[in-house]
């Protein structure tokens, strides 16, 4: 878990870095941290996360950021790339 209730909110950059760390260290993605571009598509062309890696990623994000994605959050457009995803996470953490 990245923060407690009393910790300062994460910066956008910190969210991006944590997402990259999750991909490299907690998931089955065969890349190094410095190889992941925050603008590379997560699905299809790009990282090509299949349906199973995607659910693992969602589960890891929920655990590590201590949040819950509602159905309305789980949009293809929100998972375009790490930047759009980080924006969603930032919004949820600040609400």
């Amino acid at each position, binding site marked *: 878990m990245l923060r407690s209730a009393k910790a300062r909110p994460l910066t956008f950059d910190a969210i991006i870095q944590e997402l990259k760390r999750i991909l490299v260290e907690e998931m*089955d993605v*065969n890349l190094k941290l410095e190889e992941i571009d925050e603008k590379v598509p997560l699905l299809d062309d790009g990282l090509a996360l299949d*349906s*199973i890696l995607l*659910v693992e990623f*969602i589960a890891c994000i929920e655990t590590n950021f201590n949040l819950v994605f509602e159905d309305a959050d789980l949009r293809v457009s929100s998972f375009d790339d790490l930047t759009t995803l980080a924006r969603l996470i930032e919004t949820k953490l600040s609400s």
Partner: protein
Amino acid sequence: MSFKTLIERIAAEPSVRGNVLVSASQSCSYALLPEALSTIEAFLSKRIDRGVILDARCGNSVAGALLLLALLAENRSFILGKAGEKDQQDEQAFPGPRLDVSSSTCDLLRPESFLRITDSRHDNLSLINETNARLYMRTSGSLGTAKLAVHRHDRFVDNVLACVERFTLSRTDRVAVTVPISHMYGFGAAFLPSVVAGASIDLQEKANILRFLERDQLFSPNVVFLTPAFCRMLLRHRKSARDYYLTISAGDVLPDEVFVDYDQRFGPLVSLYGSTELGAIAAAHANMPKDLRRRTVGVPMTGVRVEIRPLPGQVREEGDIGALFVKHSSGFIGYADRAGKILDENPLDGGFFATGDVASLDGDGMLEIHGRYDHCVNRDGRLVVLSEVETLIAGLEWVDQAVVVAGGSSWRGEKLEAYCVLQRGCDRGAKELKIACAERLPRYAVPDVFHTVDSLPYLDSGKVDRHRLKSLSGEER
């Protein structure tokens, strides 16, 4: 009755004409279906002789679906394949015309806008006449060369009709197909039966939790075809309530806890059991009691006979589990090589096909599947032969020995654990093993966990003690 007749009849029904086939960026009503199919046939006729076997590659798109319907309606023989899939080696490529279908926005009445033909590289191609038109499907068999299971169109149609009957599909249904229509499950059990029933159909390409939830809101299906892994995904991440009329799951055994949870939250869930060789073999019915739907795959389909035979070394009694053999009146006629030539081998034993599964039949004829008996496991709906994964790992120059055992469960199906003895002095470990496998194997075949050990345990017979390895990992099958 032929596919052509079935399609023409259903498309002419007034109550069906407004129903639609949709995918992410394409849509076609049943009213438009006859015209769309005839323009595709006119396009093909100018370019390819009718008797030539075609290699049809498509994803879950309306354009791809129309191509496949056109090939069936016009009794053309074709190999069913996945869009964008590269043949592992050039020698494995089919030496005939290849049809690739675009899934982007296009004019469905102009085949040239979505269909690309790559001409054959060889002149000596088998010609199949229309009365013997065939459908070739790549088997899901392991990592080596996939065999082609050969179906006759005129028998395959009965396989499709049996699914319409078992799932009570009708023109009032709205069916979501989350599995590829380039395989038997998606094509023969989900898509074609839904078309024959005149249902509206949503073809989901590369379905995942995000796409499914979005499409669910837009299309509002009442029937869903999916896999056990997809059931898990929905259970894990879907928060909203939903009550589908029917969900059909196939591709792997459905764990009890997944069934109970899904059935409670999202409506009746049934299992379908089948294979590329035989099509649909058995399926539960929505009206069956929950416990039977949980435990069994229902009764065999019309035209199917099953036998439970003793496993090697087993003295079997009535009601015991054993090896499942199936005789199917509308199953395949044999295997073919990559050029479509039927192989001499007889895949049947007295008309029965060895499924490789362990099963039992209860007193009411309900079939229960217990797993495999041939050192294979199902992962992501694909068959993985453990020895092939072992051979690949052991083939790494810094690995001395490798054993892969299955046990427990993972998102992809049975959990795979690899135990490896590395070459002396090697400074690599589990992480490097995982990377090496990821570079050489399809994702579904990569073991979930890697262990490096000093040595492997052996039985007195000299074989590796796999049971001991499983107990070391704390998992028992």
